[in-house]
């Protein structure tokens, strides 16, 4: 949201793949090594990875930092296989090198004086919140996670997430684990109960879920942040392709922001959440 250019923050890195492991249905954890990146990365930021051995795939593929070990230099992303790029990235071998452009984008800023941090994640939207929860583990505020997935085998790292949170609500579309239905349901109930005075909501996931969270924040006058996943050709503000529309508040001179540079994290009352 600022105009200042912290362009020295990003680097083109050649990173060695340390490990690759399946963690859920169609979903893999890819770990690569970079001491520098592990020092720099902040929760909410992402890495743009070149797809190896696929000559006709043009763009890099963006993935949120999922876990960072600041001491060992291990950087982990969570990859869901949805097309050819993600598929190829889940076939790499340890020892291989990946071209990574990172760290990119802005990050979550959590004020220390809140009472409750409410995180609403759908599917792979969980990816950045593992890292975030690790980073804020020592903070005194309550952490509540609402985590929805298609079915039981789609959840990632629930036990670890459970130990990082004060309260965890799971939902599945098919009812195979947790409550059946949308993750919005437990969130609605939670917000209807009297609770912490200073709540902050964070969300990432499918468009419709984020729209519903946006509406609830409006209804309950809650501050919140949303992390968007627009298509990106460059990931660092060069192509202007990843435009996000701002909500017209009458005074806004800038109708569009860039998801990769001004975001991917935006105040939830500032942007139009769209396909």
């Amino acid at each position, binding site marked *: 949201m600022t105009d200042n250019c912290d362009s*020295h923050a990003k680097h083109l890195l050649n990173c060695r793949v340390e490990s690759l492991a399946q963690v859920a249905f169609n979903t893999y954890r890819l770990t690569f090594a970079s001491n520098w990146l592990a020092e720099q990365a902040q929760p909410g930021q992402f890495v743009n990875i070149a797809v190896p051995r696929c000559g006709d795939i*043009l*763009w890099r593929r963006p993935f949120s930092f999922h876990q960072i070990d600041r001491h060992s230099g291990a950087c982990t992303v969570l990859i869901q296989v949805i097309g050819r790029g993600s598929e190829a990235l889940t076939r790499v071998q340890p020892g291989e090198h990946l071209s990574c452009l990172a760290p990119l984008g802005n990050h979550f800023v959590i004020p220390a004086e809140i009472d409750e941090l409410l995180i609403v994640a759908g599917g792979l939207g969980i990816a950045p919140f593992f890292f975030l929860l690790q980073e804020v583990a020592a903070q005194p505020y309550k952490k509540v996670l609402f985590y929805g997935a298609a079915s039981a085998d789609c959840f990632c790292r629930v036990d670890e997430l459970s130990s990082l949170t004060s309260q965890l609500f799971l939902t599945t579309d098919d009812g195979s684990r947790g409550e059946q239905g949308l993750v919005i349901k437990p969130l609605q109930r939670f917000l209807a109960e009297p609770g912490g005075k200073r709540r902050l909501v964070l969300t990432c996931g499918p468009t419709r879920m984020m729209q519903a969270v946006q509406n609830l924040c409006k209804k309950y006058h809650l501050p919140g942040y949303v992390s968007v996943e627009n*298509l990106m*050709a*460059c990931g660092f503000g*060069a192509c*202007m392709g990843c435009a996000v529309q701002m909500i017209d508040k009458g005074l806004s001179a800038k109708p*569009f922001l860039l998801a990769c540079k001004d975001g991917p994290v935006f105040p939830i009352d500032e942007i139009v959440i769209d396909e």
Partner: protein
Amino acid sequence: MNKVAIRIGDVAFANPIMVASGTFGYAQEFDGLLDFSQIGAIVTKTVTLEPRTGNPPPRIWETAAGMLNSIGLPNVGVEEFIAKKMPFLRNLATRIVVNVAGKTGDDYVRIVERLQQVDGIDAYELNFSCPNVKQGGMSFSADAQIAERVTADVRKKSQRPLIVKLTPNVTSIADIGKAVEQGGADAVSAINTLVGMAVDVKSRRPRLSTITGGLSGPAIKPIALAKVYELCRKLTIPVVAIGGIMNLQDALEFFVVGATAVQIGTANFINPACAAEIAQGLHGYCRAQNLNLQELIGSLRVEK
């Protein structure tokens, strides 16, 4: 000795590798990712008289070995460009080519007149061809007479070299090229993007908010080569080649068909250091082959 230096008008460029308009911003985003002094020139994102917000999303779509865009020339307008972007640009150890576009011929004249008062600019590239601005560019790029007249009008006000950027979306690119040469252009650059389209069958919607957009990337290289070849045969002024260049080999092909310089576009998104690497590669190639770039340019062998 510098084997790869070139000239456009009366301006010398240390090497012929430039970065294409709209793919390098105003260079700030690339700070730290490459050594600007290694590239021959930076062509800025298009600057217009008034600020433009650009098209609504979605603005981009990936295609086989390419991409579609309909960014819509968002930019801060010429005054803020001068105030906010030029201070960074003029300090870089490379040539600065400012790409300008207008709704009318008069817009081009007014922008260039204004930029004439500003130092740190080495040349202008007139964008007669962006397919994403509705009433914009189209007539200039498709009508030889208008193209010639606007070039001549700008020529009168400009003390700097003029490069006119041509669209491939016309019946004869060489006719337009001839016309702008007649109008006083010092060089032409080609090609801008090709009009293309993608559709989502599930929603039955176009992938871009503007329905059609501009195709770029490796997918268009063969077309760009053919257009550049045609221009090189019919024009006497230098041709700056653009279209799908990803590596040194691609760049060399354009020199062989006759290009004096090349611009790297979409490749900057994937490898931000691409242009610097190609420039380094070209130095190495000329040294290894013991030839001057001038000997390579137009060295295509065809049976008569």
